[in-house]
């Protein structure tokens, strides 16, 4: 059964591909054996289904008229240039890169899509020998349930609506979004787009999407504004570069985590009694103050004031709670 149908689909495809002109249904019925044997109604149904099945594989079937003067019966054809993968000439190293890339996705659907792409490239004559290149492979996973529907909506430019809970909100709010793209940052997925409720671009973390992502309009019903660069829109997701330096004191034998991005400080009095003096690089002041606070009484910030003040304020708040309690 499968073989008979495959045969029919392939013969239909070849007929449409080799023809220079549009092929009418009548003509198809005479050249494809299974169509010839079917009754009128059965043929119509079979042909419609076959056409859709080929299209779903990505086969571009065009509809047109044999003769512009007689627009009575449409014909079909497959334009070779739209059907075939163009030439792609890869060096062995480049082919190895493709082979490695095909193993990056840990997400079932996208892993399947990359394997399908790889099969097509092999069919185009590319020989993949991963060993030709010594590269450590990254892995991309997408465990968030909202990933699949949002990837699809991004692909088809379909507006969506979903429940979303920010960390400071008590319950999920319904949001409406024209998704421009998806971003993976530090192992987490985000969707970026035009928030139609806020009338401005917004970034949403997929793990905070609650419940189902629903389609909220027809496919292709918005355009991503020209010149949109996702990296720019999502700049806030990236940690600031660690280009600042703080001076701290740490008790010897403590603050091992901090010492991973620190160096012994130079200059006067490098070792006050009972302390190590360190130069620490950091990016965001708040995050660095958080880190310092984690070491309790084992670390003291000397500079900059911004971090020192932030640490002192919170220590006073916590210590002050004692006065209030006693």
């Amino acid at each position, binding site marked *: 059964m499968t*073989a008979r149908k495959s045969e029919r689909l392939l013969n239909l495809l070849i007929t449409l591909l080799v023809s220079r002109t549009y092929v009418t249904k009548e003509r198809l019925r005479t050249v494809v054996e299974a169509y010839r044997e079917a009754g009128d109604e059965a043929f119509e149904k079979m042909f419609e289904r076959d056409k859709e099945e080929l299209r779903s594989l990505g086969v571009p079937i065009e509809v047109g008229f044999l003769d512009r003067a007689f627009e009575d019966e449409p014909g079909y054809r497959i334009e070779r240039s739209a059907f075939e993968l163009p030439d792609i000439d890869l060096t062995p190293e480049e082919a190895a890169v493709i082979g490695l*890339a095909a193993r990056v996705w840990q997400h079932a659907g996208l892993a399947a899509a*990359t394997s399908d792409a790889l*099969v097509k490239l092999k*069919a185009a004559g590319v020989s993949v020998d991963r060993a030709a290149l010594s590269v450590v492979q990254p892995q991309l996973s997408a465990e968030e349930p909202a990933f699949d529907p949002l990837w699809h909506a991004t692909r088809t430019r379909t507006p969506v609506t979903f429940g979303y809970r920010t960390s400071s909100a008590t319950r999920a709010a319904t949001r409406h979004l024209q998704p421009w793209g998806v971003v993976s940052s530090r192992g987490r997925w985000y969707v970026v787009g035009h928030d139609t409720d806020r009338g401005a671009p917004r970034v949403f973390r997929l793990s905070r999407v609650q419940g189902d992502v629903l389609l909220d309009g027809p496919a292709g019903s918005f355009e991503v504004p020209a010149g949109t660069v996702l*990296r720019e829109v999502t700049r806030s997701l990236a940690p600031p570069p660690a280009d600042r330096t703080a001076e701290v004191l740490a008790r010897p034998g403590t603050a091992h985590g901090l010492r991973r991005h620190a160096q012994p400080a130079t200059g006067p009095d490098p070792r006050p009694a009972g302390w190590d003096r360190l130069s620490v690089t950091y990016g965001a002041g708040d995050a660095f103050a958080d880190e310092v606070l984690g070491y309790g009484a084992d670390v003291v910030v000397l500079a900059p004031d911004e971090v020192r003040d932030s640490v002192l304020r919170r220590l006073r708040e916590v210590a002050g709670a004692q006065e209030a309690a006693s």
Partner: protein
Amino acid sequence: MSGAREQVSRLLALVPYIQARSEVSLEQAATDFGVRPEQIAKDLNVLWFCGLPGLGMGDLIDVDMEALEGEGVIRVSNADYLSRPLRLDSSEASALIVALRALREGSDDDVRPIVDRTLRKLEAAAGDGAALAAQVEIRLPEQQSRVDELRERLTGAVTAKRQVKLDYYVPTRDESTARVVDPLRVVSADGNTYLDAYCHLAEDQRLFRLDRISSAQVLDSPVDRHAGLQPRDLAAGIFQPSGEELLVTLRLDRSARWVAEYYPVERSRDERGGGLTVWLRIGDPALLTRLMLRLGASAELLEPAGLAEEVRTVARQALRNYG
């Protein structure tokens, strides 16, 4: 996907694949297509009845059945019109291009130009199909290439069933310890990669986050047998209570509600003004002290009272350092 649709999809690649190579062994084709050799043989049988319209003599695709059945070698002729595979569709092109970008992010100066050239060629060949790739952005953590390298080494140790000596940093106790482990598997969850292993120091199964491993040395010694030891099921998340954790009650201000997302909360209650009271389990009191100092006035430790006192003591000691 129906069987026929899948088969036609495969044939549209198989016919050009064979023609590009003049002949291919059945085994090799099966490997390249990720199916069993019997499936490829079945696919080739379909071709037997396919060809140019009319299917007269000389119109049919010619599959050398003798070579196939005899030597297990595939030869196909009379199919010039199927000499190229179908174009990449948008999901194939974008999945591959995004994967290449991830590879690019993690590669060094020697490999990056090769990845760039590959990307350019692939984008050119994919045409419109590549458009979606512009809508995907991959930002790997700074330490990613080190983690990737560790993952490969540790995965190798899992396969070879070798013990590994780790230097591991434990943030809650702020210490780095050397330990020998029997690796079970390497697994990703919640955006991090972990080694699931039996730890001879803890004498128990442990998860080690790869970005906290400062060194990993694969030893010659084989792993010990551990009866009944199973890789952890991480479907429910990384944190699995052992029952020995401390039950803690915290009152969080609106600005500290994020705590409920990062720590395993047993239950929570919304408070007036946007605050939240949470009951959570914490394995190590030191972790709680760190958290409370960070939160400052935006959180209050309600239970256990003894620990609340300890947190205040630490804060007072730290304040004294500032004079």
